[in-house]
């Protein structure tokens, strides 16, 4: 049986020839992402925003009547409801903010939820309650804090490990690539106003994990080649390393995409945001490993001596004294 080869042998693509423009574009994208997050903001789900969210299926309708729902629930006087499609066209999630006074009153949140539902049930037949979430403002605040803390701690610790295992330049490079991935994912969520929930934090962590895999594979090859080709200029060596690992990069990304796309197409609605984020992250993560993590080594001054143990002065004198060259 002749086996498939997705990437021909001995590719020699000059990935890093255009590293400058790619870098500028990437930096601009990171800046744009943060600008988007700052200006448009993230569309926090009930986890992070707090409030009362109910999920309903209109079993008699083809499509949920979102505009009229918005009007009807807005009229109840709990502020603007956030109404989003959730899964099939006739499924929606409706979130109303909890008035501050409600937070200390047990049962009041439920009363609001019930009021919303009975208002809808009086207008539409056969509305099925798929579930509801109530998160108080305090707990939502804690979720936000803990999520940020978990992300930062993970990113920092990872970079530290890479610094120890490789060299400091590699640690910085990996951290930079991770910042790029997280920023772009956040930017995407801000741009399309996709719901940002605790699940998405899990997705971002999966992206970090995947992107890191990629970065480490390329770094490992760079380290190997630095020892092997002492005289090769760094840009050329980086290109060589990326090319040598290209078959693996393509194959791994492809298999992951193959596993994810069915989940995206036929998977449960509740997983859509999560899977979409991871799918997107595979592209971003692969790109960042090649175009962010690798070229930064040139600017940070990695040389082929980086992995040769530095001889200290005393050893040198010793060696000279022993008459060795």
């Amino acid at each position: 049986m002749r086996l498939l080869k997705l990437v021909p042998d001995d590719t020699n693509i000059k990935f890093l020839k255009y590293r400058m423009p790619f870098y500028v574009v990437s930096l601009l994208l990171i800046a744009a992402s943060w600008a988007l997050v700052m200006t448009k903001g993230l569309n926090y789900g009930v986890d992070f925003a707090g409030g009362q969210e109910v999920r309903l299926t209109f079993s008699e309708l083809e499509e949920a009547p979102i505009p009229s729902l918005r009007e009807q629930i807005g009229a109840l006087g709990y502020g603007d409801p956030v109404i989003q499609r959730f899964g099939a066209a006739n499924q929606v999630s409706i979130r109303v903010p909890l008035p501050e006074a409600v937070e200390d009153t047990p049962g009041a949140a439920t009363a609001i939820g019930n009021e919303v539902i009975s208002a809808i049930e009086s207008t539409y037949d056969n509305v099925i309650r798929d579930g509801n979430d109530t998160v108080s403002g305090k707990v939502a605040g804690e979720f936000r804090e803990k999520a940020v803390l978990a992300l930062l701690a993970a990113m920092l610790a990872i970079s530290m490990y890479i610094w120890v295992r490789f060299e400091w330049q590699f640690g910085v490079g990996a951290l930079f690539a991770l910042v790029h991935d997280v920023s772009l994912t956040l930017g995407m969520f801000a741009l399309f106003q996709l719901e940002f929930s605790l699940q998405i934090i899990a997705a971002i962590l999966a992206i970090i994990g995947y992107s890191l895999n990629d970065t480490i594979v390329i770094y490992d090859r760079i380290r190997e080649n630095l020892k092997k080709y002492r005289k090769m200029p760094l840009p050329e060596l980086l290109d060589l390393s990326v090319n040598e690992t290209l078959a693996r990069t393509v194959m791994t990304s492809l298999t992951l995409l193959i596993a994810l796309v069915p989940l995206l197409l036929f998977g449960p609605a509740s997983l859509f945001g999560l899977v979409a984020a991871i799918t997107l992250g595979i592209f971003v993560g692969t790109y960042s490993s090649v175009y962010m993590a690798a070229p930064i080594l040139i600017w940070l001054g990695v040389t082929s001596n980086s992995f040769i143990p530095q001889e200290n002065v005393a050893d040198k004198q010793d060696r000279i004294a022993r008459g060795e060259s």
Partner: protein
Amino acid sequence: MLEFPRWKKIWLWAITLIAIVCALPSILSGTSVRWPDALPDPMVNLGLDLAGGSHILLEANPEQVAEQRIENMEESVRSVMRQASPRIRIGDVSTSGNQLSFMVDSSADVDRARELMLPLVNGVGLTREWTLAVVDETRFTLEPTSDGISNAVTDAMDSATEVVRKRIDALGTREPTIIRQGDTRIVVQVPGLQDPDQLKKLLGQTAKLEFKLVDQAALPSDVEQGIAPPGSQIFPYAEGTDFAGSSIAVRRLGGIKGDSLTNAQQSVDPQTNEAVVSITFDQQGGAKFAKLTTENVNKPFAIILDGKVLSAPNINEPIRGGSAQISGNFTTESANELAISLRSGALPVDLTVVEERTVGPDLGADSIRKGMLAMGVGSLLVILLMIFTYGRFGIYATAALVLNVLMLLGIMAVLNTTLTLPGIAGFVLTIGAAVDANVLINERIREERKRGRRVVAAVENGYKEASRAIYDANITNFIAGVLLFIFGSGPIRGFAVVLIIGLFTSVFTAVTLTRMWVAGWLRKARPQDLNI
């Protein structure tokens, strides 16, 4: 690298088999095949987001515990001083902030009073629970120490958890999980519960029952404005009662608390046909109740539940039997809820629902079914790609992938972990890592062959060179996983647990097991060339 002595092989297979056997009960639970009852059956629990049910996070207010404690202290002080012989007269008892202060009438009694106070001030063991001071010669001040407060909060939370458990058990719901979380929180998870309203009502009810004499001397106009005469307190009527909206003044002291009940039942008043709650006091409570009603015949007393007056009936005759009826415009349902709450005891502290999540069973089941289908399709495609790309090595990789999933399930079952939606993201990442490990190894073997190495050397080098990156990647992910577990909240932890376990299983299956299989094949077939 390719040496596998017999004992090592036996070990590797044994570990694999045990893990897989542990996964079987979880896998079979979805089918009609029954796992033999005689065998232990470790199960992967499905999180509420997958299985459906209710998750409720309750929070207590520690300040309330502190307030309650000062109130109790005041009562202790009064009774100790009253029971001293000769009696020590005290006055000007007041609470400001969390400081209790009172004056001893005669300065001669100060030393004796201090002596009597000492047992109240010192807690169990070495911790001092209150700071006692005498100012201006005759004024005592008492302030709880921070140790004292935190002990009180811990005790209150322990007993609150117990009360919550009793109440949920009284509802007859199946397999609730009730866990203390942090200092002031309790998590309640009830699988399969669709309508948590009743549960929340039950948990939201503190059920602090008090009987207090009505202050008949209070002027109605004062009461309306919320001005209480000295020694009295004003309580509003509960919603739904006949006098809802108005208030009533009651004597602060000399009442009875409803914490000395032996039973509470919902019943019907034969005269009015109204739903009521019948309560039975224990011996001590019954005696107190008899005394109160004997001494105050023809006076009204208020029945107060959680700071709201239910009713204020007249005491027509002394009640000596140790049982009483509480009326308050109940429905059968609300009378039953109150009876359950009273039976399980009052919560030592109010609990507020700060987070609630309910997932319908259809949605959960639908999630699983669709998720399974999609994962099945995805896995099939991945397997085909692996086999078409790496041939025999692809088959090994596929077998390793299947074993990886089974082992991951098995270990999760043994550790009794819960699989949640974010956990599925962890699953995907783990499978990705396992595939990646095999891709790395196989690509490296291809490369080594291309450079002209002989078969055995190429395989050996492939594993050796690829392992470095595989281990580095897995260790970094492991570090990330541990940090997520430490810093993350609920769902993120679900992700972290799967990730951490998955790293071990994926390295074990994708690196160690495949190496053993490849080594066995190389030894037996002695191939001159590799089709890879």
